[in-house]
């Protein structure tokens, strides 16, 4: 009887899906794959920041030490000039806030 039931039921088949079923979903997947950006703007920003840091680091590496005039050395004072403020350390003019520890000693 099981076989009879199976035989009777197997005469029926499912109606197929509509024609648009496959196309609709495939199209959406294609659109999603294309809309995912290949280029991330964050990468450009990170690169720009790295370039900026590298440039500034290079700038700071260049020594900017000027031999201080005698008058300033004698007084061991600061001087203002067109380039900004300087302090006199051991006879050398060093820009304010400089990270460099290079000091030129004046010999009398």
């Amino acid at each position, binding site marked *: 009887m099981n076989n009879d039931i199976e035989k009777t039921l197997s005469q029926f088949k499912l109606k197929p899906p509509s024609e648009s*079923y496959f196309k609709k979903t495939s199209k959406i997947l294609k659109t999603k794959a294309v809309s995912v950006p290949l280029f991330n703007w964050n990468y450009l920003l990170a690169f720009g920041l790295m370039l900026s840091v590298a440039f500034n680091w290079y700038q700071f590496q260049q020594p900017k030490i000027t031999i201080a005039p005698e008058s300033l050395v004698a007084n061991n004072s600061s001087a203002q000039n067109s380039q900004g403020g300087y302090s006199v350390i051991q006879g050398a003019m060093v820009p304010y806030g400089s990270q460099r520890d290079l000091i030129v000693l004046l010999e009398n």
Partner: protein
Amino acid sequence: MHKKGQSTTLLTMRIKQLAKIFKSQHGRLYICAVAITRNRQAAEDAVHDAVIAVAQTSSDIKDLKAYLFSTVRNKAKYACVKNSKQQSNLEGILLCDDTTQQQIFSSQLFQQLEKLLPEQQETIIMKIFGGLTFKEIALATNQPLNTVASWYRRGLQTLKEKINEQ
């Protein structure tokens, strides 16, 4: 920032993989959905929604195929609950071309089939009407092969008993 870039690449890969799976499995996905919804339009919508949901998810998926089938089933069940008033019966989803006598017997069978346990109904629909193998049904339902075969056997047995009672 690195995480976002990484996830974009993974998403692209997943969508491509999903497209491949859908191309090969779209028939089985539809059968799996219609076995639950008993409505063709609802089944198509469930598959469509499931594919979109899987494409958009950010979770880490080990087995994409199994996950897709599981999502289709969940969407189909949700559609059943949401559209309980929609026409959903076996005659609506089946092609039939038989004599009046057979129609009467078939009609009785369908009535009894709809009274079986949900898992037994689904298995019989997918196996007999959908033409899927036990292995394919086991993948679709994420159940062991023996369990699926057992549902099928018990479903037919119950149908036999009900028909004999009438």
